[in-house]
């Protein structure tokens, strides 16, 4: 006899309950309870011990009632059932991501270092116009190369460049659409909130089911989902914060909505959009380390090796390498942001 027997008999469900009686597999907890003592499974003596009417408790009283493990199992089976159809659609759509990532990794690793490093420094100078930063980047990369971490660092950078670029490519239009329609904003914000709060490990699990772990788009998608949020949010915010007077002037002089977007809203929102890009780059760096769990190459793999094999030194040095990359990426994007801000003073 269990606690909620009387509930089912009052509701007249006794027959239904006994129908569902089966000798299904026993859970570990049941087995333990059974072997320990028989007295525990009897009815509780007082109200203090009344268990919450949870799925498992109700199952004790009525065998036809599902147990909680059947919920998770059902979810899993449901997902597996739609998985094939889902990947039929998602696979071709996301295939270019694999090409981009593989191409970038191949390009970064097969171009000689004496071309890659100067090109990167030239880009840094172009966007920041600061020799100090060029020097910082040069010495950081040379340091990483000197301790033979060049290849790992370049893999990490290649993944970040591809993912951050795609985040901007997708995120800015989404942000613009959000700024134009309150309904779309209301629909999008919960999704963004979820992406931002869901622990990355959680959405790695379904991704592993959907895509093969050997494909690079798996970690690409994981990184993009995680890092796209700030650029979407800040594009939306930036466009909504554009000075109403300037918008009114644009209307008064007869701008078309398109002219308004490209001549007024985007340029004036650019400082905010760039702040979003900075955040997106930093978040893809954070995610690329976690994504090493699903075969993303780069410094993350070394960190993972450090944890798995307890190679303290490797883990620490790889971690330091990630910090160095973070610092130079942050400084460079902030410096270019500051240059944009300087021309946007009101």
């Amino acid at each position, binding site marked *: 006899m269990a606690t909620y027997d009387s509930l089912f008999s009052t509701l007249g469900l006794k027959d239904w309950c006994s129908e569902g009686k089966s000798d299904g597999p026993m859970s570990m907890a049941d087995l333990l309870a059974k072997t320990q003592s028989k007295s525990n499974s009897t009815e509780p003596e007082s109200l203090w011990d009344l268990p919450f009417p949870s799925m498992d408790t109700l199952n004790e009283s009525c065998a036809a009632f599902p147990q909680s493990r059947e919920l998770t199992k059902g979810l899993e089976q449901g997902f597996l059932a739609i998985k094939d159809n889902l990947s039929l659609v998602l696979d071709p759509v996301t295939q270019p991501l694999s090409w981009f990532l593989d191409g970038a990794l191949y390009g970064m690793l097969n171009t000689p270092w004496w071309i890659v490093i100067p090109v990167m420094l030239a880009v840094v100078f172009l966007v920041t116009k600061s020799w100090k930063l060029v020097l910082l980047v040069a010495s950081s990369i040379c340091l990483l190369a000197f301790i033979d971490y060049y290849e790992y660092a370049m893999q990490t950078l290649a993944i970040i460049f591809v993912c951050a670029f795609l985040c901007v490519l997708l995120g800015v239009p989404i942000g613009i659409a959000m700024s134009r329609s309150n309904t779309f904003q209301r629909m999008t914000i919960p999704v963004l909130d979820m992406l931002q709060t869901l622990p990355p490990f959680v959405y790695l699990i379904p991704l592993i089911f959907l895509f093969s772990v050997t494909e690079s788009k798996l970690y690409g998608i994981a990184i993009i989902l995680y890092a796209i949020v700030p650029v979407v949010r800040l594009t939306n915010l930036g466009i909504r914060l554009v000075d109403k*007077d*300037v918008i*009114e*002037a644009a*209307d*008064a*002089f007869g701008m078309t909505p398109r002219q308004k977007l490209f*001549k007024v809203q985007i340029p*004036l929102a650019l400082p905010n959009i760039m702040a979003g890009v900075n955040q997106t780059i930093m978040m893809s760096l954070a995610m690329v380390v976690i994504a090493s769990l699903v075969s993303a190459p780069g410094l993350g793999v070394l960190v993972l090796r450090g944890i798995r094999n307890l190679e303290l030194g490797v883990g620490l040095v790889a971690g330091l390498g990630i910090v160095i990359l973070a610092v130079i990426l942050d400084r460079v994007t902030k410096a270019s942001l500051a240059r944009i801000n300087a021309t946007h*003073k009101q």
Partner: protein
Amino acid sequence: MANDIKISIKHLYKIFGPTPDVALEYVKRGMNKADLLEQQNHVLGLRDINVDIRDGEITVIMGLSGSGKSTLIRHLNRLIEPTAGEIRLDGTDVLSLNEEQLRQLRREQMSMVFQKFALLPHKTVLENAGMALNIRGYTIADFESEAVKWLARVGLEGNENQYPHQLSGGMQQRVGIARALVSNSPIMLMDEAFSALDPLIRSDMQDLLLELQAELQKTIVFITHDLDEALKLSDHLVILKDGEVVQQGDPQEILLNPNDPYIIDFISDINRARVLRVRSIMKKHVDNDGDYAGDISEKDNLETVLSRSGGDTDMVFRVVRNGEMVGSLSMKDLTRALVPTDASTARTNRTD
């Protein structure tokens, strides 16, 4: 003045709120602004506005904040849609225009100058000045000479390649005016264009506007809350209160014959000697016999006459227009005109 009517506004109503059409019925039946807000939860923006704006004149719309003057000016280019009424520009119904025609109207017929300048912060002064032409599809090379010309005309020679934030407020508004002039539209809407500037600069800008107007004779609609500014600039003055026209007409006429306590309050603080002109208070006659102390122009203000008389109240001046006598002005009449109207005095006594 027989200028043609450029813009005519007839029975214009604007009500802000979720169901303005329902509220409009209450307003037409005479519900006032406070009751409408309390009982219907709608804000009365404008009530039964009838104004004719004449070609080549400066029409000043004056009122305190909340009187609906900014709302009214935004109806002219339909930045705000009216609830009911009619707006005609050169005879065409502005309210019947579709989106494309409206855009055409905004590009070619009307330009606007804003209180907070509303320049594009990421564009140079030159590009800002040419904004209207840029919108119509011209490139910098096309509009550069035109923009440079008007920038020079408003006193910004050599600032073409600076950014707006490098300029002072007064200079930024000069860019705003140049932008409106470069668009070469016959109508200029100026929404409290000088209110954000300090008094000296403001006075400079008013002089600049009058100078430009003498040269270009555009149709200007000017919004202000400053009576001195209104009297200095206006050919036709419209006074708004709580979304209604209280009085409109020749500013001198309004000053001498205010028909509402609200206006009397307004005009009691101004320097009448500087604003009133000889033509408004002179006696009209042409008999040239008399002992005149000298000739004065009908356009002189009373301050000028006062300083010429040296304080002698027995003098009588001959008033001339283009060298011909049109009337006379005695210093006694002048002194009397300086006293704020009796109505105003009575009102002040009552409140004491």
